[in-house]
């Protein structure tokens, strides 16, 4: 009988009862999967990306299946930060899990306002999505330029009383450069990776499947990219990392943790199996037990590179 493994971890001072978190945009505000199991079994939830005002997102089709992956162009469809605080947060608070609000803004000022409102509302952490376009910088994504990423991080930090985690985009030449800029600007944690840009074309109609032509790739296909990026970033910065991208079983989560992640998020895997986050948690616990670890956090950064 393998001994009990301590599954609890810490992410920038936020205690998670286990290292498995639902990834932003794949789990709504928890209501739907909460019909399958008690959300208190999760370490936390990154809520669907919020904007200052309500948004309807992109026109359909928004989903295309790809080899071991999925492309999405949902966009930032959400009820707006104030509706989230009044309608969704109280419901989530009935469960025992860390609530991480994920935010996107057209301008740094919008990030600031949202951080202030969400801190006051008492979320446990704010995840700043910098993969969206900065309207002021001509639509260039914040996440693609160190100085833009640093600016949003500073503004978010200045307006938050809870830890700020910055979510990095993988669609850059050098993710380490962005990670360092964000660390220097005062971020408390990093999450990575967001989706990789991709495209799929119907050869008969010669039309892209997605109405927006391109979308973001996630699912098992992106796991090796995520592991590599988490590893590179964790070697270069001291911040704790929430690792994600393609996790669908315990072994995938263990890889991200060995590469340097303190906790992991599960996204697209839920679409195939609503219970995926719980299976990832159990699989991870089993790996830790078999390896004789007292606590799962011992995996973090323990890779032995050649």
């Amino acid at each position, binding site marked *: 009988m393998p001994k009990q493994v301590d599954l609890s971890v810490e992410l920038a001072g936020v205690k998670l009862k286990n290292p498995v978190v639902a990834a932003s945009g794949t*789990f*709504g505000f928890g209501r739907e999967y909460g019909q399958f199991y008690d959300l208190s079994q999760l370490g936390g939830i990154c809520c669907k990306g919020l904007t200052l005002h309500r948004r309807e997102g992109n026109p359909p089709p928004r989903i295309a299946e790809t080899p071991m992956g999925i492309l999405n162009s*949902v966009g930032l469809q959400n009820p707006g930060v104030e509706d989230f605080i009044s309608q969704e947060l109280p419901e989530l608070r009935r469960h025992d899990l860390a609530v991480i609000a994920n935010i996107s803004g057209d301008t740094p000022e919008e990030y600031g306002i949202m951080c202030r409102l969400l801190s006051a509302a008492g979320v446990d952490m704010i995840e700043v999505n910098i993969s969206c376009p900065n309207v002021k910088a001509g639509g260039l994504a914040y996440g693609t330029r160190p100085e833009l990423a640093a600016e949003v991080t500073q503004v978010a930090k200045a307006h938050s009383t809870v830890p700020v985690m910055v979510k990095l985009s993988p669609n850059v030449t050098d993710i380490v450069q962005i990670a360092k800029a964000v660390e220097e600007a005062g971020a408390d944690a990093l999450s990575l990776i967001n989706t990789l840009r991709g495209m799929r074309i119907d050869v008969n109609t010669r039309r892209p*499947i997605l109405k927006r032509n391109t979308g973001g790739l996630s699912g098992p296909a992106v796991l090796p990219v995520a592991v590599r990026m988490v590893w590179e970033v964790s070697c270069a910065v001291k911040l704790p990392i929430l690792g994600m991208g393609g996790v669908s079983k315990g072994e995938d989560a263990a890889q991200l943790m060995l590469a340097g992640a303190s906790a992991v998020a599960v996204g697209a895997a839920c679409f195939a199996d609503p219970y995926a986050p719980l299976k990832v948690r159990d699989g991870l616990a089993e790996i830790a037990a078999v390896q004789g670890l007292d606590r799962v956090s011992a995996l973090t950064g323990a890779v032995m590179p050649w």
Partner: protein
Amino acid sequence: MKVEQTCKILSKRQLNAYAVEMDLAVGDMVRASLTGPGQFVHVKCGEGRLLRRPISVCKWRACEDSDTLTIVFEVRGEGTQWLARRPVGHSVDVLGLLGRGFQIEAGETYLLVGGGIGVPPLLGCAGSCDGAATAILGFRSKDRALLLDEFSGSCADVQVATDDGTLGHRGYVDQLLRQELAGERRYRGILACGPKPMLKSVVKAAAEYGVPCQVSMEERMACGVGACLGCAVQMAGGGMKHVCKDGPVFDAGEVDWNA
């Protein structure tokens, strides 16, 4: 609680060269989550394919030992191909029952309009209408027709149209629909399922005759439960609703038909 279940394939048969009918043992799924015809199940079609395939419920039976569900589907691509080849006695992973189906008032008379693989879900409607419904069913040609005997057994009147005239009326269902709406019988509403161009002309005819119309919509899905916001349909009011959660059945007036 919604459930994901491993369901045994009890039987399957080929309804024509394209469509497969499959009976599944679904545990207590019908008793636990059936609200009416037009709902769907989300079926895992092999390990290599990440996304489940949405398939409407055609018939159901609640039973102490295990409920049964009947689905009817056409082979369109790899997923439905995999499902069609799955042998009797083997299992499939099913999430269900999902979505909001047709709203049918007891004792009222409805006009069912189906096209192609949109026909099977209407059989459930016929069952909920106590034999009083009229069905207008359209197919590309005679060799694509399906479930005609079942509809005859559960409807007051069944009319068939084929695009090429190989069976019944030659042409589209909306011609038969207009005839019927101009006739004697009065309907509480029209219940429609089929390809989008068909739905559009049905909705137009319904509006002309002032008959309320419910339509079953399709969109590409990921989660199937309302969490990912993937399966959006544009609404006439400018917002979005989602096929898997708010639908698949919508009031025709809600939908933006020009999107």
